[in-house]
Structures are given as structure tokens and as C-alpha cells.
């Protein structure tokens, strides 16, 4: 076992007064006082949400106000924690959107189960379910943390649509085979 003896230099006079160190520290303090804040005063201030952020899953309507979900239940199938519950239903033959035929009767997402993985959004063939920018969810009971269909549409709102698949289908249906 060998030891190395380190030589300690005695403090200089300036060091012994502590003045340079205090001044150095204070200069940092004054610099920070005039610099803009680096932290956020949450919850009064909210962070900017980047594009592609995965917040609370919501259901959206197309620009014409038609509910996009057709209750194909693919999200229910793919959901890893089984947070989604759908009861499919038929659109009555005299409704405006009768050509879509199918819409959810009930659509529940249990936010206590949701893990914000975004697989539901990825799998949706109708682009009806979107993880949007709500990230903070709280409630007093378990029931209140299950988002039902009404709440999901309220959270989701309307998103721009590039396809209008069903509108085109309806137009084709109205034009009939004579349009060929």
C-alpha cells in the first residue's frame, strides 16, 4: 500500500477575505435577475405543445360536422391496456349520413387505463381518433375519468380533412352509374 502526500497550498490573502468569491457569486445573481426566465410558472403558464404530441385521445368530426368514427373497433382491438370500449350501432336509413351505415352507440375511453401510446390513432382507418394536446387529467371519482362519446367529441372538436371519402361516396351514389 502506498500513499501519495498532496501538498496543500495555504490560502492567499485575497482568498482569505472571501471578497472575490462573493463578488463572483453576486455577478451571477445579478445576471440571472435581468435574464428571461428559463422555468415555466405552471399551471398559470402552459408549455407550448409540439406537433405530433400525444395527449388525451379524442374523437373528431369532419369539417361538415359528421362524426368520423364508424365503430370499426380496431382501436378497441389494438389498445394495449384495453382502455377503449365501443358499442357499435347502425345509422338509421333516413339519416343524413345513412350512406355511412355505421356509427358508435357508445364509445368510452378509460383515462385511468390509457397509456397515451397513440396506437388507436395510428390504426384508425377513418382518422377519427386523435391524441391531441390535453395532457393533464384529474378527477374526484373513477367514473369521471372515463370519457364517454359526448365528452370525447367535446374534447376533439373538428379537424381538417383531406379525403372526404364518405362525401365522395355519397356524390357517386347520387350521380349513379350514368356518370360513367
Amino acid at each position, binding site marked *: 500500500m502506498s500513499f501519495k502526500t498532496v501538498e496543500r497550498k495555504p490560502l492567499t490573502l485575497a482568498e482569505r477575505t472571501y471578497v472575490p468569491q462573493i463578488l463572483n457569486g453576486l455577478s451571477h445573481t445579478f445576471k440571472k435577475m435581468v435574464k428571461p426566465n428559463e422555468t415555466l410558472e405552471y399551471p398559470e403558464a402552459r408549455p407550448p405543445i409540439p406537433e405530433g404530441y400525444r395527449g388525451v385521445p379524442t374523437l373528431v368530426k369532419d369539417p361538415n360536422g359528421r362524426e368520423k368514427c364508424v365503430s370499426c373497433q380496431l382501436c378497441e382491438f389494438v389498445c394495449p391496456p384495453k382502455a377503449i370500449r365501443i358499442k357499435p350501432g347502425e345509422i338509421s336509413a333516413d339519416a343524413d349520413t345513412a*350512406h355511412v351505415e355505421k356509427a358508435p352507440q357508445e364509445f368510452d375511453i378509460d383515462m385511468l387505463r390509457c397509456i397515451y401510446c397513440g396506437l388507436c390513432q395510428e390504426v384508425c382507418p377513418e382518422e377519427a381518433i386523435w391524441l391531441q394536446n390535453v395532457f393533464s387529467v384529474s378527477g374526484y371519482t373513477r367514473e369521471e375519468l372515463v370519457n364517454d362519446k359526448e365528452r370525447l367529441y367535446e374534447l376533439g372538436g373538428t379537424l381538417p380533412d383531406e379525403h372526404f371519402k364518405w362525401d365522395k361516396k355519397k356524390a357517386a351514389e347520387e350521380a349513379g352509374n350514368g356518370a360513367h
Partner: protein
Amino acid sequence: MIQPAQPDLVTVYIDGKEIAVPKGTNVIEAAKMVGTDVPHYCYHEKLSVAGNCRMCLIELGMPMADRATREPIMDPETGKQKINWIPRPQIGCGTTVVPGMHVKTQSKMVKECREGVMEFLLINHPLDCPICDQAGECKLQEQATGYGRGYSRFIEQKNVKPKRTQLGPRVTLDDERCVLCSRCIRFSQEVAKDDVLGFVDRGSYSTLTCYPGKELSNNYSLNTVDICPVGALTSTDFRFKMRVWFLKQTDSIDTESSVGANTVVWSREGEIYRITPRQNDEVNDTWMADSGRVLYKEVQADNRLKPSSELATSVSAAASLLDDGNVAIVGSGRSSVEEQFLTAKLAKKIGAASYVVGRHGEGDGILISADRNPNTRGALVTGLISELPTTELSQLAADIDAGKVTTLLSVGEDLTAAGLSDEQLAKVNLVYVGSHSNATSAAATVIIPTLTVFEKSGTFINQQFRIQKFKSAVPGLKGAADDRVVLASLLEKLGDEAKGSDLASVWAEIAETVPALSGISYANVPKSGLLIDGSAWSGLDFPEGESLHFKPATAEASA
């Protein structure tokens, strides 16, 4: 040319694999035997060959021989006979094997043919998969994965056809999805013998419709939904109820008649959504009647008997009533073999006379027979009865009137429907063991709620004396007990040695005591059922007429 090993076998080569298949087999079936799947839409093994979808195109070749001398032409490179490949693809379904035939199912040409056919089929097929009930069990979806191109080159507008046609009371047609395979038309002609479907219009406007003024209302109409390779024909009852990939499949037996059609019960989380046929080439091929598909509704029927007390309490109450000496037992032709065995044992134990209520209707010659009890033969085999059951229990009625019977046990049978009057029921102490309420349960002193056929497991013996298994598809109603458990605990309460009420121990007992069922256990009854020797009952005049895969014994003897 290689001679077949047996005269009725033909040796063919599929993708180079040699196989001997029966004469008359087509290439699709032969390929299936070597484990190769030839995709197809219009071909169905139980229907005639139409050959109109062109999906099963394959390459065909025959060994080359000199035209003049019939000498085989050898390939000097391999030393084997040269193969003369037909330059154009042939359909597999319409090609019957001949000795020495060579088939390619995986060649480049075959693959390109399939891709071409798929592209044409998808031209006018709507993008309905998210709302289509067939999604998940759709042949078009499956083959599109294998042979589709992933995008469409077709930029024109797709054809428009009727989307919600009611073909009949139970079948809804979406014409846009139809690939014109004509399976449903051939089924209606050949199996249901109700020729109401057909195509109208030409080319891409071809549309499936019903004959004007008629509808697809026969009792086999839902089989067209099962065989539809796409989502064109859908069941009105199951439409938009649940996606098929969520459903659990359980093997079961149709209970509406003694045919015993094999079925699959589709359920999710304890709720049954639909019943479809299960293939059994000895019983029902791939078909079943529509009337058997709605039977699952009895599970959640309003008149289900709900338990009001503990099972042990009601069993001891019933046992004390049954101990009085003048007991009669009405068993059921709807009970399983195990339950009938225990009922017979119970009758023997307490010295009671046992009856079974007969149910008769008209047989349709296909899959519904005249005997509407699924298990009359089970009652005979287990010794519950020795004569064929009658619809009216007049002997029992007379015994009640004469005061010979003071206690009555009914296993799920409504005795007023079997000819007993309310006054007669009021005269006796009535124990009712059953799943649904009726006039008998209303008159009963003790009611023990039990399970429906979808909630329990067991066996039935059908008209061919074929013993077939059914399994519990959904958990039983809370508190209701399995009939088998109820009967076994009644026996135990009445002083019988406890032998267990599980299937294995009941079957151990059955195999020991019932001669016709010796050597059988629940576990070793195969999926397709097991024929047992019914010659001991050949003297009885069974009501069944001829039906699919069944000839009555009397008809057989005279033939």
C-alpha cells in the same frame, strides 16, 4: 406413367410433390391434401363447380409422349419424362385430376394471374372494410393481403349498386361488395331447393337479386351469409353487432331436433353474438337451419329463472319431498346424456316411474327432423325410458288422478304443455329443475334454477346414434346450478354414494353401467362425434324421416 397404387386412386404431382388422391378429385382438393392452399372464391366443396371467379388459376402439365408411337419422350438432362406444360393457366376447381398430371400452384405465371384477378375484383369493390361485418373473415381481404397491390390504379368512379337490400327476413344484401361468385345462388338451388336468387344485368353492372315477388325466406337462408366469401350477404340479426375478431368460438350442438347439427357459438365476455354451423361431413356438412341460430337468445331471456335461495337449501327441500315414496319423474329429451343418466339413476334409487315428453314436428328433409328432442336416443340408451316418448303424459295424469303419484319431479319440462291440467299439478308436490319459467315452475313447490345448453357441457345422441359433445360457451347465470350438479346432489341427499358430479366421474359411472356406452369417456368423444351401436332399439318406430346423411332404419331395410 406411374400406375396408381389402388384402382380408385390417381397419382398426381403438385408442385413436384407426389400424392395419390381419389378419382374425381379436383385440383383444389388435391392441393389441400398436400397442404397447399389454392385461393378461390366461387368454389365450395359442398356445391357444384361454377368456375367463374378465376382465382384458382394454376399451371397444368402432362408427361410428354410421342404422338405416333405413344413412346414417352425423355429429357436427356434429367433422365426423366419431359412435362408438356399447357401454355395458358387453367382453373383448379374445374380440373379433375388424371393420372400423371403435374400442377404448379406457386409459379410466376400463377402468381401474376392471381394478382390480375384480384385487381379486377377490387376495381369496383367499395372501401367498406371499416364498416363491413365480414372484415376479419373475408376471403377478399385475405387474398388482397397475399395478391393485392396495396394501391389502386383505377382512378375512375366505382360502380354504384344498392347498399341495403332486404333479401329476406334474415338476410341483408350489399350489392356493391358482391364479387359475383354465385355460391348463394347454387346453395339455394342445390341444398335449400328454393331457387329464388339470381344475377340480373350484364358485365360490371351484374347484380344479385331475388326473383321478383319472392324473398329469400327459407329456413336455410343464413347459410348463404356463411358461404358468402365477402360481406355482400350479411345476417340482419348479427349486422353491426360485434367484430368477429373479438368473438370466442365454442363447439356446440344444435338442440332444435334430433339431427344434432354441429355448431360454433361465438361469444364475447359472457355474451353470445351468433351461432354458425361447424363442418361435420357425417351430419350436417357445412349447413344449419336459421331457426337454430337464434336459440342463444334464451340465455338472456326475460323468463330466465333466477335463484332465490342457496343451492344446498333448495336441494334438501327437494330431496325431502322426493323421499315420500309415490314419486314420478319427468325427464327431458333436451337434457344431455349425463343428465338423463343421473335422472334415470335417481328414478331407480327412489323407485319412481320415469317419463320423457316427446316433441314432434314436421321434418324438412334437410337438417330438421320430425323428432324435436335433441336427445331422445340418449334417454333410451341411458335407460331413462324404454319406449318412445309420447307428447301427452296420459299415464302420469291417470296416476295423479288415482292418487298413485303425490310427488313429481320435472327436469325442465313444462307439464301443462304435456297434457297435465293445473288441477292435477295442484294435487302433487312439484319439484321443478329448469332454466326458464313456465306454467309448471309457477305451480312448483321447489324450484331449482339451472343452466341453458350454452352454459354447460355434455353430450347428445342424435338420430344416427352418434354421440356428440357440446361445451359451455359462456359462464352460467349467477347462482344457477348445472343440471348435472343438481341431480348428483339430489342423489347424494337421498342416500346415494357420492361419486362426484364432474363430467369425468359421471362418465366413469356411465361407461361402467350403460352397455351401449362402455369404453367411452367425455374426453375421448371426437369433435365429429362417435357412432354407437343402436341395434338394441332398432325395433322402435322412430318418427324421423329421411334427411341429410340420414336414412331411417325402416327405409334402409326396405331399400
